[in-house]
Every structure is written in C-alpha cells, then in structure tokens.
C-alpha cells in the first residue's frame, strides 16, 4: 500500500469540511464515539445539521469561536492507499497555513462552487499550489445538486479554470463534478450525472501516479548524523546517516562528498535490517564510504558528474510568516537548508507577488505576514542547493528569527543570484 499526502484548503462556505467529512465517513474512518461527540456538540450549539468541521477543530478556542486556527492532519485509508490529509483553514493566516500544508503534499484538492466559478479564493489556492509545485491538482466542482446536475454549468467552470491555469505551472490538472453534501462522485459514482464518465474523487486519489513524482536522477544525500558506535564489535565503523533526497544510490557507485570535493565509492548502504543494494527517496539509510574521509553533518553526497550548486548568493521566492516583524533589505536571519544551518543577509527585494492578480508589485521594500516575494540573499557560507522546481528537498529552506527562534519564512530557491 502506498502513502499519499493531500492538502486541502478553503473557507466555511465552499463545502470543504463537508467533503472531508464525506471522505472520512464514507471510507468508514469516523468512529461511533467521535460521531456522538460531534452530534452532541452540534446540538449544544443549536445547528440543524451535524457539523463535520467539529471533527477537525481540536482546540478550545476553535470550538468557542467556530473557526479553524491551524493546520489539522487527518488520516484515512482504503484497501489501495493510505492518505494523510493536511486540512488548512481559508480565512486567518491563510497563506501561511496553506503553504505549510502544501509543502509536503503530493496532491492538492481545490473546491469550486459551480454557481460561482473561479473566484479570487480559487485563484489564490491554485496559485499557491502551483508555487509550491504540488505535482497534482484536483479541482472538485462542488454543489452540482444546486444546478440540477447540469453538464453545461460544469463545462463552463472547467473551461474558465483551464483558461486561468495556463498562467500557472501545474503539471497535472483534473476535474470532478461533485456534491459533497449528497456524496455524489465523492466516493461512489453519481447516478445523477450519467454524462460524467470519469472517476470519483476517491477513485482519482487512489489512481494518481505519485511515485514517479520523485526525482530519481540527481543523487543528493544530505548527511544528517555521523554514526560511530565506539563498541568492541564495531570499533572502526563510521557511517553517514541521512534520508535520500533524490536519485538512486547503489553500492559501488562513485560519489563526491561536498563541499570538500573528495571522491570515493559507496562501500555499503546499511540499515538495521541489513545492507541494501540501493537506496531511493525517501529512504533513511546509513552510507559507508570506501575511503576514510572527514565527513560531517551538513555535507552532501552526490555523483561527481552531477553536482548541486555550491554558492552563497541565492535568488529566492519567500513566503513571509511572521506577524511580529517584516522582511526587509539588510535583515539578517538564520536559515535552515537540508541539514545545514547558516545565516543570510537580505541583499535585494525584487518584487512582491499579488496572489490575487498574479501581478508583480515592484518598488516594495518589505514583505509582511502572508505575503510572497522575490529576494536575493547572501549566506555566511556556501550552501549546496538545486532549483526548487527540480528538487524540492535541496531547493527549499526556512528562515528563523535569531532573537525569538520563531520560524518566520519559507523559501524556494529559483537559482543563483545573477
């Protein structure tokens, strides 16, 4: 069984909670005691229907205010696949939460009310999914029951979305006409829309091919931890632990250790269950090298003929996440990139992206909460990186405020600064 990570976002009205509730309910993930608890809570609040949002709203403040504050993770599975769903609220801290949820997602689910078509919120959702390079986007054209299951109404929304999506970078775009409320095309096929011959939402989620989304070409192995047992049995053991970021590593492969540049070969790829012939992402393994080199956390193993960039000047897109401070030219921040911490200084602010119109707003000198913009950064020491579009693991970073230690920004590397 394969693990698939989903991200979904939206506000109270678009039927997102109902859709998630449906997926959980119809795949039999909601337990009797959970259902009783939300029925009771709905009654206490005086709502007419069972509010499935109460399933995910876990914090006291959320229940009191009837809002969703934070990313909630939900789990469901079918005989074919197991799903982790990052459910993010649409109203407050919108961008910050969606970027967080999307950062690990294989598939983004976007709901569109068939009566409203592509609205500002749809544009924002889709744009962020495209910016974070979520490989698959599933647009659920919802509330089909309210337009008499009309194919024309559906086709119109699909055409409108496709037209808008040409401006985005979406590699796989799918549409499903649904009614989350009645369950049509969520799990089971709709009897009301005989004109639709495609899969239901759940069938689509079960079918989408995700294992080929991984980068199996560029070998990148950030060293996380050096294992030296110091026991009688393993006196000379020296292994480099980490998670394969991309590429396929094999025993005997010629590799280069960066930044030192020393070349050697892989002596073995070890795990607790014994050595393996090869390692692929996202396996966590221990690599032993044929030569005794000085390798430490933060170094990277790559192939001699396929190396990441090694430099201090980064051209990046940043999503700002702090309510306390803004991002400005001259700011110094801590950066975490792969298994490395360094510091960066902000050299230049190029533009801010208006996430509604997708226009570039130039002549800005700062980025505030939930804004996205392009910057030039210089790091205190060289980083080993790739373009984010080629490699999520070696192209992403977080920015941390050195005074508060808060995570204040998320970044994607576009390339070297020119």
């Amino acid at each position, binding site marked *: *069984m*394969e*693990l698939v990570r989903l991200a979904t976002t939206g506000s109270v009205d678009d039927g997102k909670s109902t859709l998630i509730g449906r997926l959980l309910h119809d795949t039999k993930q909601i*337990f*009797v*005691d959970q259902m009783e*608890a939300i029925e009771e809570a709905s009654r206490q609040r005086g709502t007419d229907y069972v509010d499935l949002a109460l*399933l*995910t709203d*876990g914090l*006291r*403040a959320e229940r009191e205010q009837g809002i969703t*504050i*934070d*990313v*909630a*993770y*939900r*789990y469901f*599975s079918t005989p074919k*696949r*197991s799903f982790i769903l990052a459910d993010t609220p649409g109203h407050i801290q919108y961008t910050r939460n969606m*970027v*967080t949820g999307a*950062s*690990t997602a294989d598939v983004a689910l976007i709901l569109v009310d068939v009566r409203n078509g592509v609205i500002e919120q749809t544009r924002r959702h889709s744009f962020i999914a495209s910016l974070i390079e979520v490989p698959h986007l599933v647009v659920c054209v919802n509330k089909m029951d309210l337009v008499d299951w009309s194919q024309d109404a559906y086709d119109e929304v699909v055409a409108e979305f496709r037209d808008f999506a040409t401006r985005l970078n979406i590699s796989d775009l799918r549409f499903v006409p649904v009614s989350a409320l009645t369950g049509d095309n969520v799990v089971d096929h709709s009897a009301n829309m005989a004109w639709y011959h495609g899969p239901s939402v759940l069938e689509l989620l079960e079918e989408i091919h995700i*294992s*080929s989304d991984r980068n*199996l070409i560029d070998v990148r192995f950030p060293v*996380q*931890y050096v*294992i030296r*047992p*110091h026991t009688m*049995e*393993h006196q000379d053991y020296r292994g480099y*632990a*980490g*998670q394969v970021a991309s590429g396929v590593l094999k025993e005997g492969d010629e590799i280069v250790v960066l930044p030192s540049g020393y070349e050697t070969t892989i002596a073995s790829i*070890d*795990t*607790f*269950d014994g050595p393996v012939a090869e390692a*692929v992402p*996202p*396996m*966590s393994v*221990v690599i032993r090298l044929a030569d005794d080199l000085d390798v430490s956390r933060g170094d990277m193993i790559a192939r001699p003929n396929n190396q990441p960039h090694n430099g201090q000047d980064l051209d990046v897109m940043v999503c700002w*996440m702090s309510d306390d401070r803004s991002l400005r030219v001259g700011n110094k921040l801590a950066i*975490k*990139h792969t298994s490395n911490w360094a510091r960066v200084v902000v050299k230049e602010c190029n533009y801010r992206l208006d996430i509604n119109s997708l226009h570039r707003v130039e002549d800005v000198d700062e980025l505030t909460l939930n804004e996205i913009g392009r910057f030039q950064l210089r790091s205190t020491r060289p980083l080993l990186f790739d373009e984010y579009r080629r490699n*999520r*693991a070696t192209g*992403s970073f*977080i920015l*941390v405020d050195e005074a508060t*230690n*808060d*995570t204040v920004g*998320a970044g994607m590397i576009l390339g070297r600064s020119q």
Partner: protein
Amino acid sequence: MSPRYKLSQVDALEAESIHIMREAVAESERPVLLFSGGKDSAVVLHLARKAFHPARVPFPVMHIDTGHNFPEVIDFRDRQVDRLGAELIVVSVQDAIDQGRVVEERGRNASRNRLQIEPLVSAIEEHGFDVVFGGARRDEEKARAKERVFSFRDEFSQWDPKAQRPELWDLYNSRIRRGEHVRVFPISNWTESDIWGYIGAQEIELPSIYFAHRRRVFTRDGMLMAESDHIAMTGDEDVEERTVRFRTVGDMPVTGAFESTATTVAEILEEISATRITERGASRADDRMAEAAMEDRKREGYF
C-alpha cells in the same frame, strides 16, 4: 518505473520517523525518550534502535512511574531497557506526593494522570533535557491533530497551540533558548493500524496486557476496570473473571479493558478494523472527562 523503487506506506512512515529522530539528536545536547511501556512508546524505542544502528541508542529512557502502573508494564519496561543497555530514569509520582509537591486527588474518579505533570516538568529541568521524545500520534486525539512534530515548550513547559512554529517540508526548527525544550513526536503521522501492522511485521515485543487474558474486572461507566489496590470500589460493583485485553496502557484506575479473544497481532488487527470506537474513547476515562481535557493537560506540560 521499476516496482523496486516504490516504498510501502509503512516503509515511508518509518523513513520519516527515523529522519525525525536523527534530526532531533543531531541538533540537541541532551535528548531523552519518554517511555510509558505502551505500544506507541515501544514502537518509538524500536525506531530509535533502527535510527542509530549499529551504535547504541544515544539517549536515556525516562519513565514517569505513577505507582499505579500495571505490574506487567513495569516488567516489560525493565526488560526493554536492559536489552538496549540504555540508562533508565524513573521519575516517581509517589515521591512527589510524599514530598508534598503534588496533592493526591480524591473521590471516585481520582487519578494520578494529572499528577504526572509536575514530576515530569521537574525532571526535564533537573536533567536539563532539551529534546524530549514522545510517542503521541495525531490520529489519537484532536488537540494532538494540531500539534507539530517538533513542538516547542517554554521554560514552564507550556504548550501554546496558537503560537506554534510553522513546520514546512521536512525542515524542523529545533532552536531554543536555555531552559526551554522541544517535545519531538516521531510517529505523529502513524495511525493505530499502522502501529499494529508495524508491530506485527517487525515482531516488536509488547506488555502482555495487550493480548487476551483472564482477569478479575468490574464494570464502571461502561468500561471494564481491572481489580487492583489502586482503585476503590463501591458496594454495587461486582468483580468477575473475564477474558479481556487492553487497547491502551495507562494507569490501572483509568484504563479500561474490553472483552476480547485476540491473542496475536494478526487477531488484534482484525479486531481493530472491525471496531467503531476510537482507542481513547474506548479505554481512557481520563479523556472522557471534558472535550478539552487533553488540550488542558498539554498546555500545562503533559505529553
């Protein structure tokens, strides 16, 4: 693509958990693992062995002993720690009561659950732990569904759910100031059936009370409670012997059993896939108290 490049869901979860543990250890000076003796902490301990193999697990194991534990769980704890060659730190709630640092609850539903918080927080301070591994899962409970993998605690060990650090990709922020620490939950993304599937596949040993056995029990609030010195019974509660097992491991007075004949992991998995009640709803009196019971305890420093 070659099927050999595909990872199963449990392999993917295991790889993620190992990455989290290595990251936390690499970035901390004094990590510790909280071990309850339950199935989740047994899985975390197993993952720790795998993450640092062939080296020993590079941190001590800490148990908060309420004095109301199942004896089978204490036996299990000692065997596990012995086998690892790890250092065991036992923090005694009884000592805290005897020293007047906490006050025993009274009444029919008295439990030592909340009393664990003070001794736990004091032990973290006393030992200067900066990373504390725990076996909490997000599917267990809805306050936990919102908690980060690296969950920051201030100098009072408090959790502030509204001021959590955003957690993106697999880039974890473990930076803290002196006196603060990070609770790290490597199996955040595992579900109850993932845990059982893994226990079966990896042949992980568990305390015997998870499997069906004969036990003297009585019914209270719809749950079967084990007869013990730690729970006061009322006159109308009758003890009888039944074949039961436990779905979670907590203190004897708050952990309910249920009738089951499952004696193997495979049988337990079958049982779970048919059950319609969550594990905490089914077996934990402490979580039935209030809708926000877990959130309130967590804010004060609970795990």
